[in-house]
């Protein structure tokens, strides 16, 4: 890990009156796999374009591989491999020619171009189709070829913007396995913008959730629920009904709900551990006999939905 591959400090970008990215603070360690999650229009693609120097921020600073992408855009892009949701392959060119072009753009010598193109095509299992035009490829094949192209220059940073968008379940699994393989190889920073939360959960070391251009939560996929979002605990004990009977003073935003069943239990949602302590103290003061306070672990999907408020991912 160590040195950060991507650093954004208070980055904002507007389009007219609409703010696409607002005060974005983001740090992605070198060699890690970071998942950027968020509903459509949350600012993921704008963030990618800012990182590539295709757009400049109105406010804030961006550093990619230690470089400012606006004045040093060419150098940043030379170190970065990108795959957008539409892979942007040349339909009239064959799979081989598309990689040949990527190799020429990367200024590789002919022998190295051929070696890497062959390795890339074999890796994504398209070697047998190398002489076929891309126009005859399925969406899944195109995405795989797009990944091979993005990797051809052996970039330090790989940006994948919705790589499984529009794919059927079989192709999603195939591509996910490929991404998992890339992630496990290590040594390369991967920024994965995705709608698929389970994909992020399986592949990413850390994830961030964007909402309306703001990064509202960052953490590990497992820990995000407890680290970055709403805390939820389950309280077990006797006389928990005092919570309903008395005017228990709950912190702002906290919700305490008695659960049906035996033994008695209640569920508390609140903003942080301090609020949990306050509510527990209040319950004890009101006469409840507490036996256990157990933090609830939530899935990334639950956390995501809690944060973005049910917007379609």
């Amino acid at each position, binding site marked *: 890990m160590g040195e950060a591959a991507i650093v954004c400090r208070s980055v904002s970008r507007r389009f007219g009156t609409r703010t696409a990215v607002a005060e974005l603070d983001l740090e992605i360690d070198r060699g890690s796999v970071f998942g950027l999650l968020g509903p459509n229009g949350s600012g993921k693609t704008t963030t990618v374009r800012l990182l590539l120097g*295709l757009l400049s921020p109105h406010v804030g600073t961006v550093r990619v591989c230690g470089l400012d992408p606006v004045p040093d855009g060419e150098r940043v*892009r030379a170190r970065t491999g990108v795959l*957008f949701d539409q*892979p942007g392959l*040349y339909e*009239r060119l064959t799979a081989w020619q598309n990689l040949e072009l990527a190799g020429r*753009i990367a200024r590789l010598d002919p022998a190295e171009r051929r070696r890497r193109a062959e390795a890339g095509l074999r890796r994504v299992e398209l070697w047998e189709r190398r002489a076929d035009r891309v126009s005859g490829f399925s969406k899944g094949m195109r995405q795989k070829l797009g990944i091979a192209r993005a990797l051809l220059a052996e970039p330090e940073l790989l940006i994948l913007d919705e790589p499984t968008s529009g794919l059927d379940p079989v192709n999603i699994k195939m591509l996910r396995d490929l991404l998992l393989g890339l992630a496990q190889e290590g040594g390369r920073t991967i920024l994965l913008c995705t709608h698929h939360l389970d994909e992020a959960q399986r592949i990413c070391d850390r994830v961030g959730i964007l909402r309306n251009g703001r990064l509202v939560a960052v953490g590990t996929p497992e820990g995000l629920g407890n680290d970055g979002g709403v805390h939820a605990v389950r309280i077990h004990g006797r006389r928990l009904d005092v919570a309903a009977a008395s005017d228990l003073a709950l912190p702002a935003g906290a919700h305490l709900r008695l659960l049906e069943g035996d033994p008695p239990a209640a569920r508390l949602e609140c903003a942080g551990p301090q609020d949990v302590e306050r509510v527990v103290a209040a319950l004890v003061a009101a006469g409840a006999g507490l036996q256990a306070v157990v933090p609830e672990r939530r899935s990334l999907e639950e956390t995501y939905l809690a944060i973005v408020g049910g917007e379609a991912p």
Partner: protein
Amino acid sequence: MTDLATMLWKEVVELVGNRRSLRIYVMAVLIMGLLPTLTRPRGMPPGIAAVMLLGYAVFSSVVVAAQAAPDLVLRERAGRTLETLLASRLSDAAIFGGKVIMAAVLGWSAALLTVAVQLIALHLRDAGAPWQWSYLALVQGRVVLLAGVPLLGVYLGTVGSFVAMRVGDQRPAYTVTMLSAGLLVLPVALHLVPLSLTPAGVAHAVAALAVVDLLLVALAVRFFRRSQLILFLQD
């Protein structure tokens, strides 16, 4: 230069698979090569015939370059490959220059092929007569064909590429590019500049076109910005 060569390699390989562009190219060459030769009255004075034949060759290059320049850009937009190019390490100048040079080369090669078709058709029509070199025998003809037509291609390539980056639709982009060719003859049509077909007059006209090209290319490179194009693609 390496990046420019990469872009040109890509354009050539793509063109080979582009039947529509190839059809327009072949039709322009054949029509402009055969039609005037077949319809030319036998008694037409050689000077007028030379200007007419040269005009057809130039027109074939205009048709091809004006069609090719927007097409080269619009295909990239439609196929979402422009975003891939913009996200690559290629410089703005290489991306833009590749389009302009390719359009110019296509236009120029169309003119040269048109000339070849004209000469062969003339030779076949006047069977037994010695080879006629038509306007190629004149200094003016050679200056126009070897310098004027490539410069015209650069002009049309620049205008066509630049317009297509912004317009996003083939028909208006092609129309604007063709109209821009008309702008070049406007000073003569409005009698602001006298028409002179002497060697010096033609050389001056070609030199003036070179200056216009330089200014236009400088302006286009100045205003060709990734950040702008991304916004157009976004819209």
